[in-house]
């Protein structure tokens, strides 16, 4: 998922809708994020390209809302509710995900296995 600066980024994404869970006074989603343009991309264990400064899912609480919705560890979050997440700071990403007045977040996430699946299905199509 490397990008060329100035060129549009293309990726195969999956739409995931997470319902926030109310725990006391907080709305939680049940996962942790890492990454951001102000962070060190070399430490990211999930990215293929070690200069990728996108937001990645680093941990999922088992049984939480994100797990139920189908989010997986290592996913890169491309959009949250229409807002772009490929070029944001870590704090901005956190804020976009934890808006108090939203109950639902619709994420566009991408992962490597999606690419493989598409290629595989296109290949079988071509064989026909």
């Amino acid at each position, binding site marked *: 998922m490397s990008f060329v600066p100035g060129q549009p980024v293309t990726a195969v994404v999956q739409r995931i809708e997470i319902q926030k869970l109310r725990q006391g006074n907080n709305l939680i989603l049940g996962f942790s994020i890492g990454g951001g343009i102000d962070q060190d991309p070399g430490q990211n264990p999930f990215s293929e390209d070690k200069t990728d400064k996108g937001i990645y899912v680093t941990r999922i609480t088992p049984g939480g809302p994100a797990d139920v919705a189908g989010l997986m560890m290592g996913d890169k979050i491309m959009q949250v509710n229409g807002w772009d997440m490929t070029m944001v700071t*870590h704090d901005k990403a956190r804020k976009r995900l934890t808006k108090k007045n939203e109950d639902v977040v619709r994420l566009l996430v991408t992962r490597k296995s999606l690419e493989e699946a598409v290629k595989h299905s296109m290949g079988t199509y071509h064989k026909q």
Partner: protein
Amino acid sequence: MDNESQYSGYSYKSSHSRSSRKHRDRRDRHRSKSRDSSSRGDKSVTIQTPGEPLLDAESTRGDDRDDNWGETTTVVTGTSEHSISNEDLTRVTKDLEESTPLECKRFVGPALGGCLSFFALVTPLAFLILPQVLWRDALEPCGTPCEGLYVSLAFKLLVLLISSWALFLRPPRATLPRFFVFRCLLMVLVFLFVASYWLFYGVRVLEPREKDYRGIVEYAASLVDALLFIQYLALVLLEVRHLQPAFCLKVVRSTDGASRFYNVGHLSIQRAAVWVLDRYYSDFPVYNPALLNLPKSILSKKMTGFKVYSLDENTTNNSTGQSRAMIAAAARRRDNSHNEFYYEEAEMDRRIRKRKARLVVAVEEAFTHIKRLHEDEVASSPKHPREVMDPREAAQAIFAPMARAMQKYLRTTRQQAFHSMESILTHLQFCITHNMTPKAFLERYLGPGPTMQYQQQSGRGRQWTLVSEEPVTSALRQGLVFSLRRLDFSLVVTVTPLPFLRLGEEFIDPKSHKFVMRLQSETSV
């Protein structure tokens, strides 16, 4: 040296057992005594050496003979008939060659320069004295100004004298094949100067018997000034100009590939050659002909290749085609000599390390047998009467236990030609006198030192030949190659200019060094 026949000589001699060596020696002695260093067949020549005790004359022949001076204290007498091998022969002829009669050519240059400078120094005094001697009464009296000039003249002459002594009265280090251009130029200049001054003096002062003495004194002072300036020129041309490095010389020894890189300034080829040789004697490890050859076992396998015998008369076309086919077939055959070389090398390393360990232990133990006697201990004699020895006797006393290990080690590292028993004893005595540890004593034998370490101080000097395609007085420039040849090896020198350096500047504000921690936070949402 003729390697192939040397091998045949070794194999011939080393295959025989010790008992038959006596017969061999007797046989060798009956052969004709000829100082022919290019003897083709058997390489052993009987020669009567003029009093040089050659340590263990057969020590250069093969490894399978027992050592003499390690176990028994043999006294090597001077004038006895030895049979020596080819290496000793070339060594002797080299020494004889270097003890050629004193070359007078060596001293012509300095003598000429000395005469000229003496002449030049005496001239101002002559200018002053001659009028006084010849026509003293007619001279105008010259008071204070003249005395001032006398003082300045005296001091300038003193300075000239001292600086000439410091700069030019040093013994020359080398004789160059061609004229040393700068020195010749300066000598011609001095000669012209002084000659023209004398000419002017003769015509204008001596002839008409000039009365103005002050003018004469000023004239002499101007000559001394001019001489000082010529000396400044000499200093710059001869000593200073070549100090700034401009070229990088790569010096490679042709026999074993030992190489060094040196930076020199602008010099002519012959001066650069002298410069390189100065450093050769102290930088390069000594040339050891015994270390050059691959072990016999490997080379002999290579040499038993295909032999082509052509039996018919018209051999022109057929033989070349045939030999080419033979060579191709030989090349295709599997050649395992590199394998043997590797194992042989590993075995040799192991053997050297083993002998070195034994040597170190033996020397350490030997050194514990003696200790230095301080002056205040002399009085306590009645309890333990100890024999007081001087360094030479002490060295001889502790030499015996280490001698065998030393000789075995020297033979394994093929250094036995460089160290005789006498030299080892002298070195041991030297180390004992200066309170050196065993390790310091062994430093000389554990590695090949520079050639200077093994030189005897002979006043005749070493003969080198400068081989060059360009005239040797031309200046160094890029791509020049010349070589310095001696009897059995040569040094090949390649000249490359040093790169031009473009130095830039970057200013760093000391306050600009700031650091932050690398962020890798993980937030749970």
